[in-house]
């Protein structure tokens, strides 16, 4: 499925592909449409739910609204293991290793020392057998330094049954994807109900791509866009194995902002009212269209671009580092609440072990007034074995900016623990803010029951679960001179040798006057030998 939205000169495309596979004891042994390579990985490691995202760039909530599926910069992975899993840490390490091979990403660097088991932030998104959840079966980790490139896109495409030969995946050409402002690949496995009564459970795999284009950066003179402009080629047809293929174009802004015309005419127009906000979509049903030549959807603007005042979404956040020097520092997270009512949020901080934080310095301030968190869950880190995990439940006041501040120390690492190019700095993963929004404005997330964009239309609920990822941070730890160990050894040895020489001499030798006549020192003997040789020559002269 493709979803497209025009907003602030940026364009967002999103593919969601869902494969259902029957669940059972031999779940992943025999695969039809479900990719066997991924199924084997999930089956072997006792995975109940698996969410991997590989993202380049930062989602700018303030300007772009909320994404369909949220992702932290770099690689992000979180997994629920089944309740009967033994030795979760070990199996988690093996899982990351296998996924790393599957997706050509450095996920193998994820292990216990950089994984959390958050209590509140990550709940299963699919069906669970009993509501008694034990957070020791969930693992969450990020690799903010991970760079996403073609080598990740190719294996991602290979998991689709039509590969990149047919359907929407044929649009994904590396050259046109990696010049976007933001791109994110995702794999989401979860168990879902097979029928309304939920007597049987099947497995759902959602493969997502989110792309944000900036037409100005791409060098186009106007803001008109088309499939060919964005992807380099048109669409040749649907994947014959798919049950449905749709393209949705959000035309809500046509009525308020700069209007644009779509060519060819859509097959349908849908109006969706969700959480009190109305949006309009033009729909192309790819399977019902005839493909005599490649499909190219073109949007043309009648008037030039007008830059209006940005209306930010209900909730967004930003994060930065404060402090000076190489001893102490602090992290500040600013959470903006633009809603007219207070909001309850869960704030998850994921701090690596080499950045010891102090819980007593945690301060939450909104509009100059300190707020007491409703609940705090803190798992202190351990050097080289566990990161610092802090979950804070907050009630942030209406129309306010809340500041969460915590202090940390800069520490020295062992010399082998520095990465190559250590002066580049160390990355700290995003903080995650989870909230239950009462309004559906700017919200595009999928409802829990539905896997496709279509299921998000007219899906009004009591609240909308939203997770925001903040920026990842980069800090410079004190970096030593790496030739230091050898220098230290040499220096220490020289000092010892220097001290030993005189000590040895004093204790084993005696200072005494020397008889002038008895000249049998080495130098004198050498001299006399030389002269012996020369004397006859001198006499000859």
């Amino acid at each position, binding site marked *: 499925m493709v979803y497209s939205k025009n907003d602030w000169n940026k364009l967002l495309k999103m593919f969601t592909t869902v494969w259902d596979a029957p669940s059972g004891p031999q779940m992943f042994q025999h695969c039809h449409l479900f990719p066997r*390579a991924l199924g084997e990985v999930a089956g072997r490691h006792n995975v109940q739910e698996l969410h991997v995202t590989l993202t380049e760039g930062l989602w700018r909530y303030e300007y772009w609204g909320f994404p369909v599926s949220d992702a932290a910069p770099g690689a992000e992975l979180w997994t629920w293991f089944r309740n009967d899993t033994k030795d979760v840490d070990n199996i988690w390490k093996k899982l990351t290793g296998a996924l790393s091979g599957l997706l050509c990403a450095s996920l193998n660097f994820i292990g216990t020392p950089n994984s959390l088991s958050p209590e509140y932030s990550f709940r299963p998104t699919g069906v669970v057998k009993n509501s008694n959840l034990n957070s020791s079966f969930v693992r969450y980790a990020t690799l903010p330094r991970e760079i996403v490139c073609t080598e990740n896109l190719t294996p991602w495409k290979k998991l689709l049954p*039509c590969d990149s030969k047919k359907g929407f995946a044929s649009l994904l050409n590396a050259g046109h994807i990696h010049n976007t402002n933001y791109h994110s690949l995702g794999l989401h496995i979860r168990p879902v109900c097979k029928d309304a009564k939920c007597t049987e459970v099947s497995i759902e795999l959602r493969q997502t791509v989110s792309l944000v284009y900036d037409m100005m950066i791409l060098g186009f003179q106007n803001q008109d866009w088309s499939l060919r402009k964005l992807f380099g080629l048109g669409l040749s047809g649907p994947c014959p194995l798919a049950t449905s293929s749709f393209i949705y174009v959000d035309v809500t802004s046509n009525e308020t902002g700069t209007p644009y015309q779509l060519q060819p005419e859509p097959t349908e127009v849908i109006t969706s009212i969700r959480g009190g906000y109305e949006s309009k979509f033009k729909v192309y049903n790819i399977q019902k269209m005839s493909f005599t030549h490649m499909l190219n959807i073109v949007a043309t603007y009648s008037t030039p671009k007008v830059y209006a005042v940005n209306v930010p979404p209900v909730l967004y956040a930003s994060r930065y580092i404060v402090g000076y020097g190489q001893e102490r520092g602090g992290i500040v997270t600013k959470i903006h609440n633009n809603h007219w009512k207070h909001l309850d949020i869960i704030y998850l901080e994921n701090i690596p072990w080499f950045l010891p934080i102090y819980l007593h310095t945690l301060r939450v301030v909104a509009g100059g007034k300190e707020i007491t968190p409703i609940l705090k869950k803190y798992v202190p880190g351990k050097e080289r074995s566990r990161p610092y995990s802090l979950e804070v439940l907050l009630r942030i006041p209406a129309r306010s900016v809340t500041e969460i501040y915590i202090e940390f120390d800069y520490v020295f690492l062992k010399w082998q623990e520095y990465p190559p190019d250590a002066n580049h700095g160390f990355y700290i993963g995003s903080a995650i803010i989870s909230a239950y929004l009462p309004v559906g404005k700017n919200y595009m997330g999928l409802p829990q029951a539905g896997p496709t964009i279509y299921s998000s239309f007219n899906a009004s609920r009591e609240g909308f679960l939203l997770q925001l990822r903040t920026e990842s941070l980069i800090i410079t730890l004190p970096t030593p001179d790496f030739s230091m160990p050898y220098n230290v*050894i040499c220096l220490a040895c*020289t000092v010892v040798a*220097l001290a030993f020489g005189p000590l*040895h001499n004093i204790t084993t030798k005696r200072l005494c006057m020397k008889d002038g006549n008895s000249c049998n020192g080495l130098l004198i003997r050498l001299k006399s030998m030389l002269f012996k040789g020369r004397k006859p020559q001198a006499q000859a002269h």
Partner: protein
Amino acid sequence: MSSHPSTTEEIKTVGDLPVEKIDKTEDYRIYAAISYFVILIVIGLPLWWKTTEVYRVPLPYTRIAALNESDFVLVTNVTIASLDIDRGKQLASDLDNFFKTSKLFKVHFVVTQVQKQILASAQSIQALELSSVSRRQAGDILLLEVPGLPRFTPSQVLVGRRRIVYFATDTSSVKLTEVLQQWLFQEETLQRMISSMVSPTKSELDLAGRRRMPTASAYDVMVTIVNPDPEKVQLNWDLQEAIENFLSPFLRNLAPLADYNVKSQWLYFVPLQVQPKLVPEQPGIRKHFALSEELLPHIITPLEKKLASHVSQNPCLNFVVYVPPCSESPLYIYRQEGVILRGGVNAFLSPRWGGIIIHNPPQDICDNTTVVEPKPVEADWSKIMGTFLAQLRLLVGVPELDDIPRVSMLPLAASGMRQWELDSLYRVRIMEQLTSAMLTLQSLSQLLGEISNIVIDDEVGDSIQEAVSAVERGIELLHQGNLLAAFEASKQAFLSAEAAFTDPSLLALLYFPDDQKYAVYIPLFLPVMIPVLMSLKNIYLWAASKVRHKGKEKVD
């Protein structure tokens, strides 16, 4: 500063100190020099050597070397059941003479007499197969004389599905030897395998050996259905059920030898990547496409990237069904120019990899224009799975046997395996695993002997010990003729030896170069050692003078 020794005779006084006192302090100085020497050289150096030593568990080098001398002998019991005990004895001594020259086999012949009633009451060979005489221990063979064999079969010798060889009364011992050697024992295959393992550059495997998968504790069997154009061909096949019906019973038979995990997958839009040649319509020949045999390896390459597993480390046997679309069918494999593959089986086997079968859609569906695309194609499971089973037998290690005139065997049962075939498979695997374990241990001990930097921790030491004793136990059990227990021992030997050889801890210090070690130590050792060693001269002179002094005193 003077470093040369001065004896008491030469210097009477120094300053105000009396001679006695000087003598004393001089002695103390020498004692100090001696103590430096003792602490640094006698205690310090060995201590340093010991503490920086690479950790190595003592290994049974002599036992590993001794494995080479021990010969693998397969002891087999053959019972000759004859109506006439004398004839049976004669046969036994003839056969014994033939097998005396055998290097691998040591055959014990036992002669018994059978009651005529048992044979007479049997209506067919099948009935004899099921009777109580057919139960034999694994590895043993019964040669049973059936007087009326021509009633059932035109052959002189008939090999059953269990461990029985039926022979007619007029069968010569030469013929029986031939059957035992070529079919049941397959000694040449075994010998070729061992010699190719021991000296891979000198000898080659035979055809059966080249096809057979290398030994492992578990295998994956993957059935893949390739539909290159799902817009034109639709396959609604129940692959899972077909696997359960056809492959699983056979693999269950092999379970004692190794674990087999069956997996299946469907692939779409994976083309052949080779262009089949169009053979136009001729009188007597329909239009079809030809795929010559030389092109077959190129088919596997594009498939390969979709077949790998990211989880399993077991060797994988791949079986691929390729269903060409109507526009490219029927597609036939050509053995050479103009000759279609024999038997009308449109399949080929890739040794140690798996098999591919081309399943052409039926002509009537392709020609029928009323059927809209995608055209449904039904599976001919017995043909597809029958081919896969035949290929699987070869890959697992059951060879195709050469024909011997007037000798035949009973057709395969549903299980797909004869008991004596299983026995010979056991023998192959035992030999392969024992030889491999022995070679691994020998190369490991050689490697450890050559490179002193390799760490051998307790775990590696344990697995080496275990492998050595398992090889010894395996050889011992073979001598006893206990095939199943010997197989277990050989399997353990193989796995332990592999585990020891591939243990990552062996590499821990391998790349720690010596020059770096010296670069670190020399700044300390050189300045400290030079004065200590130089003082040795003083000590020596002092000790010599003492001795001389004592000698003089004695003379006085």
